[in-house]
């Protein structure tokens, strides 16, 4: 629409990241460096992912849902998990608590994702005269993605960093992590396999992200209790 609309959409897309950083104790412990490192790891991961996608995936002429290709895409999507693992375990952070580490990593991760995937379309599209709801929905999608990223980082830190966790919870943690990691494939299936419209898909994403966040939060507190 106009520059005004662009700013509105940008606020919706990137605002929550800033708010999350400033509102939580992350800002007090100065974890910006961690977030930036995580973002850089995300960049590297995205590059590897692109190379893999370009090598192994056929370019589909139509927008149909091809299960085999989608499976491959989901497998390649797990490179994200590897990247997140690297960011959580291998990066030498200043001594910040695990509690803040995963949040910082998830935040950097989600922010880099938003910048990479959403900034350019927003700049090109939302400034145009024609009004569409697409960019606002995209902003909401970025919100859902933030929640999902932090959830995944939380689950990842539970999996890889915490040693003494209750045995009974381990399968649940892995299952949840699997679900969260395959979310991009699920939404892609909903959009193209089921032919859902964008508003419906975004609604679904928001809903599942909240549910997954709640579950991971519960898991996190459950794991924290015995250690405390």
């Amino acid at each position, binding site marked *: 629409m106009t520059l005004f*609309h662009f700013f509105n959409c940008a606020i919706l897309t990137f605002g929550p990241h800033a*708010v999350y950083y400033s509102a939580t104790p992350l800002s007090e412990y100065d974890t910006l460096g961690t977030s930036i490192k995580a973002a850089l790891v995300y960049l590297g991961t995205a590059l590897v992912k692109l190379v893999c996608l370009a090598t192994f995936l056929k370019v589909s002429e139509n927008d149909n849902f091809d299960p085999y290709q989608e499976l491959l895409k989901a497998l390649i999507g797990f490179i994200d998990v590897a990247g997140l693992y690297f960011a959580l375990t291998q990066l030498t952070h200043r001594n910040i608590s695990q509690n803040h580490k995963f949040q910082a990593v998830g935040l950097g991760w989600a922010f880099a994702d938003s910048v990479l995937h959403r900034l350019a379309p927003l700049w090109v599209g939302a400034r145009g005269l*024609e009004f569409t709801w697409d960019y606002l929905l995209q902003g909401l999608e970025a919100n859902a993605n933030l929640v999902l990223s932090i959830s995944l980082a939380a689950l990842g830190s539970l999996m890889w960093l915490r040693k003494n966790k209750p045995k009974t919870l381990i399968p649940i943690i892995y299952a949840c992590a699997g679900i969260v990691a395959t979310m991009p494939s699920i939404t892609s299936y909903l959009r193209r396999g089921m032919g859902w419209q964008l508003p419906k898909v975004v609604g679904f994403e928001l809903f599942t992200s909240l549910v997954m966040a709640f579950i991971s939060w519960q898991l996190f507190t459950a794991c924290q209790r015995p250690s405390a």
Partner: protein
Amino acid sequence: MAQRKPRERDMLDSMYSMLALVFILVACVELCDAATVVDVYRLIQYDISGVPFGSRFATLNHHAGSLHFPSGADLSRTVVMIPLRELNITFVREYVSRKQPLGGLLFLLPEMFKLDNGGSSKGIQDKQMMKNVLVELERLLVHSKIPYPVYFAFENDEIDAVLDDVKKNDATGQPATATTGGFKFVVPTSEPKKVASPTITNIQGWLQGLKADGDANQLPTIAIVASYDTFGAAPALSVGSDSNGSGVVALLEIARLFSLLYSNPKTRGRYNILFGLTSGGPYNYNGTHKWLRSFDQRLRESIDYAICLNSIGSWDNELWIHVSKPPENTYIKQIFEGFTNVADELGFKVGLKHKKINISNPRVAWEHEQFSRLRVTAATLSELSAAPELLESTGGLLDSRHFVDETAIIRSVKLVAESLARHIYGYEGKNIQIFADNSSLAINPSYVRSWLDLLSQTPRVAPFLSKNDPFVLALKKELADHTDEVNVQHEVLDGMFTFYDSTKASINIYQVLSVTFDLLLLLVLGSYLIVLFSFLVITTRGLDDLISLFRRPPSRKVKTA
């Protein structure tokens, strides 16, 4: 450390310049994601000896409105969409003649006027009504100066949907403005520029007659002339099927018929036939004037007479021969008698109209008057009973294929060819059909039809036809096929006319929302972020922290005080 810092700064500087470059590149990305793009045709813009006429602007960037606007609304920033079927001519006249401000005008023509929409004749019942409205509209627009862009477009589903939406909005009493949203029309063209020295192209073709042995005298010549260019409210839509596409088609068919006769030495007549396709017809036959001037004296004197063909495509049973010499003149009498004889046989009437030339008047209403001014006997065959005014009956918006009857053209061809042949072969007064149906010399209706269809799809406003326009070349080639010798003459259109370009454009139709919506959205987003912030602070640090966030500044003030 001291060494590292400048290097870092250098790096940062280069980063910034890179970033700036990226942003500049991104900002240059063309924003053309409009919901609908429609081809539009601009109202002509021209000057007559410095006096401006037509639409004086081309760029458009305004909200859309319809005729259902609330009374007293300010339309100076509104493009009024007017479909032809509900055109209220008094509204347009009022706005145009009182010079009331408008953002622009967009006339929606019915789809049947589309150039490539051949001869399908649906919606005949409202043709007549549409005809009157369109003639009046065109006259009004062409002869007034309009200080805003005026465009014509063809109706289609997309633009009809837009129009319905706009009407709905207007009906609720909310004219489209920046604060209420609606549709925005954008025509991103540059300002129109003057067409520098517009050229007009005349094409002539000779059919040489058979000279008797030892005859030193030049053979007499008969000229058949038709002007082929047009003028109308929308230059890109001025195809002029009747004026003067019909004359051009008739001329080509006559040339074809006589080329058949002249290709055989036995049937070659003792007359040269000169075919002339002239340009500049709407501008006092400027092309004809230049063409005749380029002849040398002897050639001009050898012309026995000239027949000009003008608008012969939609008549029922009466044609007119317009002359400027008195009817008692022997040549005129001879021509008229020849034509009436043939017309009687074919079952229609030919009338004679005499209009004296006023040499001091620059207006040349008929093409034959250019001949008469040079003392060459000439007559114009036309369906029009009276001389048209300047820039009228020159092939405007209305003059499309739907209103032209090809049988009328065929009958006209028969009349001219037959009477000419009788004159050439000396069969005057005898009832001999030279171009009888079903003979090898019969008129070919499909030839007439195909040329008429081509002419009805080709806008031919002379200033916008380049020297080597494909259409001009096609005319030249066709005439070359039928005649012995073809010459093309390029001249500069002189006189008082100046034309401006950008006759065609595309209109981008955007659906826009209002600034109010943007403000509201900003409010909603702001409160969303504030709520999110409070929620996060409360859950991670507790309510007290949130409250202390707001308390801290005053406490600081107290300290500093």
